[in-house]
Every structure is written in C-alpha cells, then in structure tokens.
C-alpha cells in the first residue's frame, strides 16, 4: 500500500507539472525546504590533506568517520592515495568551529600508503571500532585499541589482504554468526592481458571460520565474475531479514558486465541474481551506492551514482516483491543530477560518493552526491560541483548546492555527513582528488559567526552491550513523530570508499518528541523509547529507557 503511495505521488508529479521536468531540466526546481548554510573551514580546522596519485588513485579517496577515542564524537580517517592516509581526532568546540588534531595511529607509514578508502566496524566484538583499510595492494584490518591507536590484525585473523586494487567494502553479521562477514570489491586487474579493458578483478567474501572458536578469516569466497566495482553494500532489499550484496560496477572497464546483486544465504555459497530471477541488466558507471527507505515500506530505495545520470531505484510495483525488479524513479523525483547545476559547463557530471541524510532537519531525506571529473575527461564537466538535493514535501528533490555554499571547484570523491561539533546540524567532509579536503560546517539558518538551528533533530546511538555485533550493524531505527515514520538502517558499506559508524541522525521538523523503536539485527523489535527532540540518545538493547548524552562543554545542555 505504501509503495503504491510513492508511485502515485510520482504519477501525480508527472501529470501535474510536466513542464517543469521535461521542458528545461537544466533548471532544477527551487527548494522550498530551508536551505542550510555551509562554511568551508578545513584549513582553520587543521584538516589539511590531499588525496592524490596516478591512475590507480583516479578512483577512491574515501574517509572513515567514527569515534576512535571513545568520546562519542566523530573522528576522521582520510585516505591519501599516493600520500599517507591520516587520522584526525575531533577537538571541535561544541556548537562552535570545527577543530581536529592529527594523531598517530600506531600503524607503520607503509601500511598507510596507497590507501583508497576505509570503513569503521567492530570486527572482533571488543567494543573498540576497528578499521578496514582498502588499498592498492594488501588490504588491512586495523584493530582499534582505544585512544585512536591501532594495530594490524591481518595475521592474527589469518586474513589474506590480497594484492588487488580494492575500491569497495561492506560487511554484515550473517544469521548465527558471531563475527562479521567481510566483502571486498575490486577494480581493474592491471596484470591481466589486455588490461585495463575487460580485465576486472573478482570480488571476495570473507566469512569467519565456522570451525574455529577464534575469529579467523582463512577461506575467502570468490565472487566471480567481478565487473570493476566501485561500491558494494549489504542490504536487505526484500525485507527477508537476510542481507544481499549489491554491487555497483564501472562500465568503463568491464566487458559484458552489469550491476550485480548477490544472494548471500547463511552457511551457503553466495549466488548472483540472474535474469531468470528478475534481475535486470543495467550498465552504468557505478561509483557509489546510497540507500534509504524513502516511503517506509520496508523496501529500501537505492541511489546509484554514475557518469551522467544518477539512478534512483525502487522495487517495481508491477512485479512480485520477492523478485529484484527495480524501476528508476530518479527523473521523476528530480535526482538525476546529470550535469552541473551551476556554471557554463553543460557536459555530463561524474558522481561518486552518495549519502542520504537530513541536512536541514526538516524530516525529509536529502541526497548528497560528491562530484568531480575523473581526471581530465574532455567529454565530462570539468567544473562539477557536489550536489545537495534537498527533499521536498512534494516527495521530489531540489538542488541547493550553490545556495548552501558547497559548490566548490574541486573534484570530489569520497565523503560523509556527520555532526562534528554536536550542534544538531550535519557537517560535511569531502575528499577531493588532487585538492585539499573540503570540510564544511553546517551553520543552519545562520552564518559561521552566528549559527542558527533549523528543524528539530535527534541523534541516536544504538548498542548491544555484552553481545556480539555491539554496534548493531543490520539494525533498523524507526523514528515516529505524529503519524510520520522515518527509518534508517545501520549499515557498513556503500558510498564511495567511505563509511561511518556512530550517532545516526534524524531530522524531526517541528516535532518536539519522538517514539523510537529498534529492529535489532536478529529481527526482534524493541519497545518504544520516548525521547525528546534536539538531543543525543543512546539506546542499549534491553534497557527500559534511553540514556542521554551531552557533548563536553555544551553551554546550555
């Protein structure tokens, strides 16, 4: 029923305002939703870093956003390509300017070279977040030791980091498993004859050894064929309770390839969905996956960045929802983002990291897309500013990147939105190729000198204390205000070489309070937690009430 609602809205939009979409798609609809103001302050924040390098680093450029020193504030790990990857500890004043301090990871410089991206995850269930580091060459599992220190645990976990050009990662806790299954997406096999054309690496799945009490990843499973993936994501696309692996691939290099979806049934070999399963052939320059359940029907929508059009897929209404048949609603909802929204360059865009968040706290999901020419591709826009597509009450999206102040002339790659200064407004980091990292402070309805709030908000940290998968990867957070519900899954993967774990942010609009329920990774639902807006809450499984968290130094907590 709810899925029909989204489709109906889409139809209404098409019939109601065909001219606005079809007549001149270069003029996106104006945003009615409040436009947040972003101020770039990477330099002042002491985050001076560049992702750079030769062809192998035309892709990648990710960041891991996570709390490495247990103060609940998000810290930053930044891939460097030919430069060293670096770790920055968050020292931002609450509700003030962003501030970071570079810290020593404890890992050798060699290990931090040739890094394309990273994802935080607690692999060994010790409640310290670990890092999966994607590299040109051996991937690394860095064990979090606390206090932002790490050590390589490849050997102790019998993990073979490989020699591939790794560009994507995702993880899930399969049913019955104490430890996560790790999936690595690889790009071009440069050593294969005929490289780079049609020579994509296989992708790999690392399941924890079922025969061993200790955590070991001895036997990778090959996911073949690989089609030069740039983003992968474990996702419960069919509300089955079992995550499948969605893989977005770059058609620039593969031959005969397509987008992929692998069933990953517990204790059984993974299996790709095929045409006979309803899976449809789709070729794009897949660069980043973002997922959100826009119409709260339990079936997530997927934004797939590419060169040219971004896709936004929803399960096809006409088909059986047990089949992975998707239709593209990007055009209908105004998120194709196919060429620059400002400037004179009308060539197609190149999209990379994508992420659904609520940047103006109006209770509507927004879509951020990092944009940037691969290097100097003449057929694609050279000035290609990042997109900030604000969700509208009409269920469409409207571009606000220029007015929000993020339309810099930089080649974006990875990135992420997180509330670095704990003021309830999501800030933005973008890792740019051959340019400094962009770090934007969201100053809401105000300015850097006088930030002002927008809508109400809620930040939720979900934990499973004294259990494996303490960060509840695979859980679904449901936030109800009035008769509206927002849901978001806790996932590891997707985006472009960039991931984050920590507080999950919800905009509440004008709601002063909310009822929060958690669907835990094992499928059990929590009772409703009654929480007030504009607060950080910590929900621990089994507790009657949510805890509140206040950042240090908040002037009027």
């Amino acid at each position, binding site marked *: 029923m709810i899925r029909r609602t989204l489709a109906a809205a889409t139809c209404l939009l098409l019939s109601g305002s065909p001219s606005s979409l079809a007549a001149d798609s270069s003029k996106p609809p104006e945003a*009615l939703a409040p436009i947040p103001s972003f101020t770039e302050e990477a330099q002042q924040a002491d985050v001076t870093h560049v992702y750079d390098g030769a062809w192998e680093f035309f892709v990648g450029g990710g960041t891991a956003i996570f709390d490495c020193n247990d*103060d609940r504030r998000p810290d930053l790990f930044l891939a460097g390509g030919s430069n060293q990857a670096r770790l920055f500890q968050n020292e931002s004043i609450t509700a003030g300017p962003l501030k970071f301090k570079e810290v020593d990871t404890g890992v050798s410089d060699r290990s931090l070279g040739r890094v394309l991206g990273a994802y935080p995850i607690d692999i060994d269930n010790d409640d310290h977040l670990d890092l999966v580091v994607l590299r040109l060459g051996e991937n690394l599992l860095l064990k979090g030791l606390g206090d932002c220190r790490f050590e390589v645990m490849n050997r102790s976990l019998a993990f073979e980091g490989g020699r591939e050009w790794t560009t994507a990662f995702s993880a899930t806790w399969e049913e019955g498993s104490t430890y996560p299954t790790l999936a690595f997406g690889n790009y071009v096999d440069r050593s294969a004859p005929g490289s780079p054309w049609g020579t994509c690496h296989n992708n790999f799945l690392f399941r924890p050894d079922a025969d061993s009490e200790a955590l070991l990843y001895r036997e990778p499973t090959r996911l073949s064929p690989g089609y030069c993936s740039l983003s992968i994501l474990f996702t419960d696309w069919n509300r089955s309770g079992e995550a499948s692996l969605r893989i977005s691939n770059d058609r620039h290099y593969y031959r005969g390839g397509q987008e992929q979806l692998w069933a990953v049934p517990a204790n059984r070999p993974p299996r790709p969905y095929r045409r006979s399963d309803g899976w449809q052939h789709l070729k794009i320059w897949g660069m980043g996956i973002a997922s959100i359940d826009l119409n709260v029907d339990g079936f997530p929508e997927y934004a797939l960045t590419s060169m040219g059009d971004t896709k936004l897929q929803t399960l096809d209404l006409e088909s059986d929802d047990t089949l992975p048949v998707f239709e593209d609603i990007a055009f209908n909802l105004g998120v194709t983002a196919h060429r620059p929204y400002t400037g004179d360059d009308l060539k197609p865009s190149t999209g990379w990291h994508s992420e659904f968040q609520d940047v103006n706290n109006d209770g509507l999901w927004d879509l951020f897309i990092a944009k940037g020419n691969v290097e100097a591709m003449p057929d694609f826009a050279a000035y290609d500013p990042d997109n900030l597509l604000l969700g509208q009450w*009409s269920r469409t999206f409207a571009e606000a990147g220029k007015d929000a102040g993020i339309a810099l002339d930089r080649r974006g790659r990875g990135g992420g939105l997180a509330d670095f200064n704990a003021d309830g407004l999501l800030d933005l980091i973008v890792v740019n190729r051959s340019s400094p990292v962009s770090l934007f402070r969201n100053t809401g*309805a105000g300015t850097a000198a006088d930030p002002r709030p927008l809508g109400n908000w809620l930040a939720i940290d979900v934990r499973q204390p004294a259990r494996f998968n303490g960060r509840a990867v695979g859980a679904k957070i449901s936030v109800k205000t*009035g008769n509206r519900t927002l849901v978001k899954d806790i996932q590891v993967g997707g985006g472009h070489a960039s991931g984050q774990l920590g507080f999950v942010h919800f905009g509440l609009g*004008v709601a002063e309070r909310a009822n929060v329920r958690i669907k835990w990774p094992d499928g059990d639902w929590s009772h409703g937690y009654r929480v007030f807006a504009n607060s950080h809450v910590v929900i621990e499984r089994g507790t009657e009430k949510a805890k509140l968290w206040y950042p240090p130094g908040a002037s009027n907590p």
Partner: protein
Amino acid sequence: MNNQTLLYCVAGAVSGLMVTTAIASPDLPPWSEKAIVEDVDIQALAASGDDPIAVLQPIGEDLFTAKFTVLDGAGRPDATGAILPTKVRRQSHLTFQRLAGLDANACSSCHNEPVVGGAGSFTANVFVSEGFESADFDTIDPQFSNERNTNALQGAGLIELLAREMTADLRKQRQSALAGARQSGEPETVALVTKGVSFGHLTAFADGTLDVSRIEGVDHDLTIRPFSQKGVFTSLRQFTVNAMNAHHGIQPAERFGSDWTGTADFDGDGYLDEMSTGQVSALVAWQATLPAPGRKDDLPEVWQDAADHGEDLFAATGCASCHLPSLPLDSLVFLDPGPYDTAGTLRQSDVETPLVLDLETLVWVQSLPRDESGRVLVPLFGDLKRHKIADAANDTLGNELLAQRFVARDVFITAELWGVGSTAPYGHRGDLTTLHEVIMAHGGDAADSQKAYAALEEDERQYVLAFLRSLEISQ
C-alpha cells in the same frame, strides 16, 4: 471607523514608530467580517525601543476575542487539529464539530469565566486527541480522546517566567553533574531541586551520558512545561500556535508555513500563512499580561475568619506540599519568543532580537508580595510539577485512557489554585461541581492529603473550602 482602525490610529498617535510596526489591513469596509485585520512587525518593534506591551496588548485582546471567519482562513479542510502538521484522511462535511474541531471560532468563546481569558464551563470542554490522522473520530469514547475543561489564563505570564527559571535551574544542575562526572571520572548523582520543588535525581557518567530514570514530575529534557491540564506545553506561544490550529483552523506560519510543510496553505482552505509571527506575539503578550488572580478583599468577617483558619488547615493537611502558596520569581522580564521553544514555535534564534515585555511595568505586578531579596512571590498555589493523581482506591481523576505527550493517563501537573474560587467546575474534565468533590477525588501522590482533609471535622473542611473560595479572578 471600526475598532481595529481606531487602535491603529491610537497607536500611531502615541508613537511614530508604532505606525511602522502595527499594520492595519487597508481598504476594509467598516462592516467587514474579517477578524484578523492588524499585524505587527515584531523585528521592527523589538528594534524600536517602544514598549511592546503597549503595542501588542490591544491587538492581542482583539485577536483573543475575535470571531474568526473564513475570511481569516478559519477552517482546515485538509488538516487535522494535531500539533504536528497532519493531513486528514478524508475531509469532514462539517466545518464545526465539538470533537475533532473546529470547536470554536473565538478564544474567548471558551476562556470567558468570570472574565475574558478565564476558565470555561463544562460546555466549553475540548477534546485532546493524540490520534493524529484518525482525528476525525466521532465519538467521545475516551479511548480516542481525552476530554478537558478550559483553563484560566490569568497570571500565565508569571507562570511561564517561573517555568523558564526552573528549567534553567534544572539544566544548570544537569550541566554541573555532567562536568563533575567528566572531571572526576566517577558517576555523579544530583538531586534536582528548583525553587524548593524536587524533581527527583539524575546521574551523570564520566562519558557524558545520563541516567534519567529517576527524574520525577518533569520531562527527561528537564523542560518545565507548565501549560494545559496535563502540563505538557512549554510556552504560551507554543500553546497559542497549537490552539489556533486545533480550535479555529487558523494556521500560524511559524509551524504550518512552507518552511515546514512545503506550502503556505497546508490546510487547503485557500488562505496563505493565516497568522503571522506578529499576530501570535500579540496573543502571547495579551495572555502574558493578564492580571494574576488574587484574593477576595471584601469578605464578610465570618468568611474571612473561616478562610484564615482554612488556609492553616490547607497547609496542615499537606495540600500545600504540592499546591505551594507561592514560588519566588527572580525576573519579570518576559522575552518573546522564549528560550525553550523548539522548531515549529518561533524561537529566539529565529529573530534578531526578542521582544522584551517588562511585566514590572504592570500595576498589578507591582502589588504582588516580595521576599526579602526583592523577588516577586507568585501566589500560584502550585509547584509546576506533574504528579500521579489517581490510584486504585480513588480513580476519579484517573478517568482518561490515553497518555498525552509521554505523560501517563493518571499524571497531571498540579493545578494552580489561584483563582479557583472563580473557576468551577473542577477537575481536568470539569465534571466535579464542588471543591469538596475535587479534593475528595485526589488519589495517588495526593492520597495522604486527601485522607487528612477527609479526617477533618465538617466545620474544618468548611474552613478549607472558605479559604479556597476566597481565591478569585478579579472582575
């Protein structure tokens, strides 16, 4: 010349600046049925240096007593009366009905006893629904709505000021506990107390987390919400915005406008942005400056003696442990917007400068008692705290089935008793005709006081009633 035009001219004659801030609708004939005819630019007013009370009070009174019409945007065919902008599932064929509303076309049609702004009879009860999209119920079955009697608004400005100061106190205590726990590395538990009222305990941990499970009588965000029978609304402004939509279908732009709904006509009646921030401010100012209730000053000797004795018994029976005779107020400066509203009600962060309503300038405020520190002793006979008011043995006041805004069905804020002699009938449903009945209806946290009252001799109980009946809203 109609009243609105007259007001506008008077304001203009008092101060040239007011001409720029009070804006009358042009070209309305004197017989116009439009009720909302003036607006105020509150940014200009705040910057002008003029006394906003003088400008806003008369406009607010006009709005409070106005009979809103469809020409003002009264009616909400596409929207429910819910606090959050919510679309109806289907339109009602009735513009007015007593349940889901519209249930009134003037504030004063309910708030009118004994004077405008006062309480209401049982006939003026309203229905509170948390059902949102199902708000088009057509039953008074309590599983769908809670029926509430109309509260008096006299003294509401002082109540809100007290609540703001208490909120600030509690939050300071929270901040102190957090700082202490972070510094010591050990959990720190604080007793939450403000103006002598205890709100339980709070434990802060070194990692900045809080255990809120022992907080009592106030929401976990430590915001004192003093308004409504339940005690779930923060400010006159928030309540006004709620009420304008719920009761009249007049949708203030600060919540129902395009910023938060994507349209300036959320209720689909063809009228855009039906109430401005200035008009809401005028309503707030008028309510905030309503004189506080007092005591009858012309009692016959027999009543005065009985009342004096009764006041002592009121304390001796423990009634005054919740119905505190007074709470001290540090500041009489009422800022509008206030400090604790959130998005959807105009916030201080939404304006350059808030309006400064100095209640000290009001004659009736100047006559209020003060303590040795000069603080006004607000004689509210309340504690601005929520209590459980029913139990299995005495469930008269536990007659609701629905919790409201996270507050359990049998928990209500202590009713302020100032003016109680003027506000019969009693109880949150207004279904208790005498003070004796409502006292006897107290259970839960008030059970001991009720028993103590019940144990009094009949003449002593009469003294208590004599005392309560002496608390009145001036006419």
